[in-house]
């Protein structure tokens, strides 16, 4: 249940990247993957640290607080993909975006 919530949160946050210039490595799809992976991984890390046990939160352990663990993860995940994209643009491996 926790992972379902994290994925939903990650996907929800990803939707707002449409307002950002497309410097992401892999574009909007790269941001999508960064958001999902980030939300799950960071969610898992925070939950495991708080629970002192590496585990996926089940139905009873999932609450709004647990779902919010995904927020920093999604932002970090997309941030990493964004920084990689910027770096690739600087080195000429990726072209700068045109505005749609």
């Amino acid at each position, binding site marked *: *249940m926790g992972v*379902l*919530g994290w*994925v*939903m*949160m990650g*996907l*929800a*946050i*990803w*939707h*707002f990247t*449409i*307002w950002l210039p*497309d410097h992401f490595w892999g*574009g*909007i*799809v790269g941001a*999508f993957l960064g958001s999902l992976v980030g939300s799950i991984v960071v969610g898992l890390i925070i939950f495991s640290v708080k629970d002192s046990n590496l585990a996926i939160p089940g*139905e009873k352990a*999932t*609450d*709004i*607080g*647990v*779902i*919010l663990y*995904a927020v920093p993860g999604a932002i970090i995940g997309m941030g990493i993909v964004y920084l990689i994209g910027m770096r690739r643009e600087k080195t000429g491996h990726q*072209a700068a*975006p*045109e505005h*749609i």
Partner: protein
Amino acid sequence: MTDRRRNSMILLVVALLIGLATVTIIAKKTRLGLDLKGGVQLVYEGRPTAQAKVDGESLNRAIDIMRKRVDQLGVASPEIQRSGEKEIVVQLPEVTNIEKAERQVGKTAQLQFYDWEPNVIGPDGQPAPTESTVTGGREAGGSLFGLPEYKAVLRAEKRPAELRKDDTTWEKGCTPAQAGGCVYGSWYLIDEKNEKMICPGGKATCGPAENEKALYSGVHIPTGAKVRAVRVNPGTVLIQARPTESSQGKVVNRNPNSYYVIKDAPVLNGGDITHPQQGFDEGAGGNGQPNVNFGFTGHGKKVFEEVTKKIAERGQEAQLPGVTKEAAQQHFAVGLDGQLITAPSIDYTRYPEGIDSSNGSEISGGFTIGSAQELAEELQTGALPIKLNLISRSQVSATLGKQALNEGLVALLVGFLVVCLFLVAFYRVLGLIAVGGLLIYGVYFFALIKLIPITLTLPGIAGLILTIGVCADANIVIFERVKEEIRGGRSVVSGIATGYKRGFAAIVDANVVTFMTAFILFALATAEVKGFAFTLGIGTLVSLFTAVLATQAALGAMARTKLVTHPSALGASGEGHRWTFDFMGASRWFFSFSGVILLIGALAIGGKGLNFGIDFKSGTRIETGFVRHVTEGQVADEMTALGFPNAEVQKYTNASVGKNGFQISTKTLKPSKVNDIEKGLQQFQPQHFSSTSIGPTFGKTVAKSAIIAIIASLLVISAYIALRFQWKYSVPVLIALMHDLLITAGVYSLTGREVTTATVAALLTILGYSLYDTIIVFDRVRENVPRMPRAAFSQIVNRSMSEVLTRSLATTFCTLLPVLALLFFGGETLKDFAFALMIGVASGAYSSIFIASPVLTHWKEREPVYRARRARLERESPGGLVPAYATTATGAPEDVEPDAPKGRRRRGRLTAPEEPGQQISRDEFQELVADIQEEETGKGRAPVATKAPPEPEPEPDPEPEAPAERDPSADLTPEDLVLKDKPKPRQKRPRNKRHGRSR
């Protein structure tokens, strides 16, 4: 072959098939499922034993044996089938003795014979044949000398492993760590602090689990318990003592907490006996009590004689001075499914050479006539090769089934009618033909249901209703295309031919995806969902035939009649509505809207969670309706009196149970307890009574199969989209699907609706069906890419969306109509199903337009060719902004007729339609004449333009047509213009003509 002849042939085939279908419908009976006619459904989960793994072979053997047992029960038309990897579903319609059926059908009935004394293990972990306190002495196998299970487990734990040759699961890879899912010994869960067993349901004793993980299923760990999982090595087993009997020989405790630890070395088993039957102990010294007689196979005879001789010899050796004959006698024990039935002594003075087996033998001890008959029947059918755990049991009364059938049929009829009304209102003559196609579809499909035969269940009816929408959708897609072609200047005849030809690819793509999802659902999902998947799959195939081929022939035959000579008869008069909305420009707002919805959904999942039904949580649910008025308090009091004080009683009103309906939820109950409740509630005069009991592992099985089905569907869908379009098209599709599923989950959480197996089926259906719109849009994008070689990808998508939005909305609406009929008229089960479908279909339509297409646009715009086009368009535009729609200098939409493939396609099929170019409209003819005049005079000519959509910023067109003047960066890679199933373009000047091209 001329079109007329071809159409006549198809119509003739259609008519013949209708005749055959009608005969089938009249001659054959409809097979109704348990939910429509009443009965009991038992779902068993196979568990491995040391002798057999759970695989196809062992499950099929188990099914054969179960079928024999069901035949002995005298149940008419039973259905026993495999479901998923390791489940067996048994459906027993109109069964009278449910308790007996449940007891007998899934019983392992593993009969084993032991030479008793040398096999019983003493306190030091070694056999102690002379210790009567270990073997039980004269009371061999009795409950008096056995150990409590906790202590027996600790004693057995000391034993080292002894591997038997015939234990197949100890093959390669099977280690004490249970590698490869094999069985290595048996597992018990103990509480060392309180010196107790920890068993499922809080019972005092329980049989072993096949692995450590299975130990924790359905158990409640007491607070403060010191829990330890104990493995008893292979070669050692615990066997429960014989049932405790009173001095009168009556069984007073069938399951005593008394166990013996023995070496797992049976000398004979159930396979070594023949002709078991119930009899009476009437031999010398017999007491006339019921027993079970049987003979031996050749091997059985030999072993029986050898073993009994050995036992007699040991008895003689034990006959020491001062020891009575009774004390010296040794025993031969018989165990069934881990419990001793009897352990008779062998009289060594009477049988010094062993017992002659030519007259067979008998098992006696505490039997009633009924229990002896049951054992004899079980032994006749043989032991099941694997253990079977009952994980779900549901019982539907016949009246409730009939009610459900009526509701399903009403929903079907209403769904059919509203779809017909919509089609006729929206498409007039075309709609009438579509209705005809739907009727033919209905006849064919009903005949197929009877012919195959398909057992019609409630989910099956839901699938049937949904396929009405699928069938109508195919017609809508084609009809919209036909209207487009006619509005584009084609004649009615040519428009019909071209419309069918061009719409066909999109329909096939959409239906193939739906069919593949139905197939995966059928292969992987649980039994309840299979009926739905099967009807959906078959219906999709049949609808392809009726909605495309049959209606095309009918329309083709009518094409030259007065009925359809005027475009208005087809709803194709005028220009039609053209969407001029900047879809891609507005996508930011729609994305944000979706983000907010998902955000709310995620918070709802955290705050409220999902309301899982008993399918996932386990328990027993009883639905009953009373003739007279009864209060909740009265029912609750009766439940308390019956011994269920914690039962949840809720007032529950619907058409099935009436005004005085109640839903009673408890922990999982045995059938006997459910029967007690049914009897106890008789005082309130129940008119309906149905129950469902779900074990703790059923929900996990459903969830697991659903997850596998989702992953498999996503993979197959991605592969198909990648093959038919481009791999980049499959990623937005996956994102859109995820969006639909998660939004549906969020809505379920927000509304608090119960999540059942029907919901899971609906979610999986959404996977296949929500793609319908996406494929329609992508198909048009694919078609427009080579037609717009100078446009930005966002312009291509905007144009495609404007062209297909009407049909997309029409197909969604048309699918929602039967789904709404299900929701309002379909009864409780179908309502659950319809709700999830409604959310999914609506979300699917939204995501195909506002999620999948923008993602595709953003991704494709990163490609060098589109990047270059956008840069050029920005340079050329006065405000530096790319217009929403690509236009030529005259303001007409940019549209280049792609080159025709080299060489004509040979018409190999009799049923293939004529090439659309073969029939031309008056406008086209005039256009051709103008072309010739142009060539003769050498003058240019403005393109024959239909009314262009108003464009916000008309694009200047400084380099109209000549290749030399085209931006060299505009078309860098032909692959970008021509997708895999399109012919490679020739390097020639694009013609700006629109023969037959709709806009």
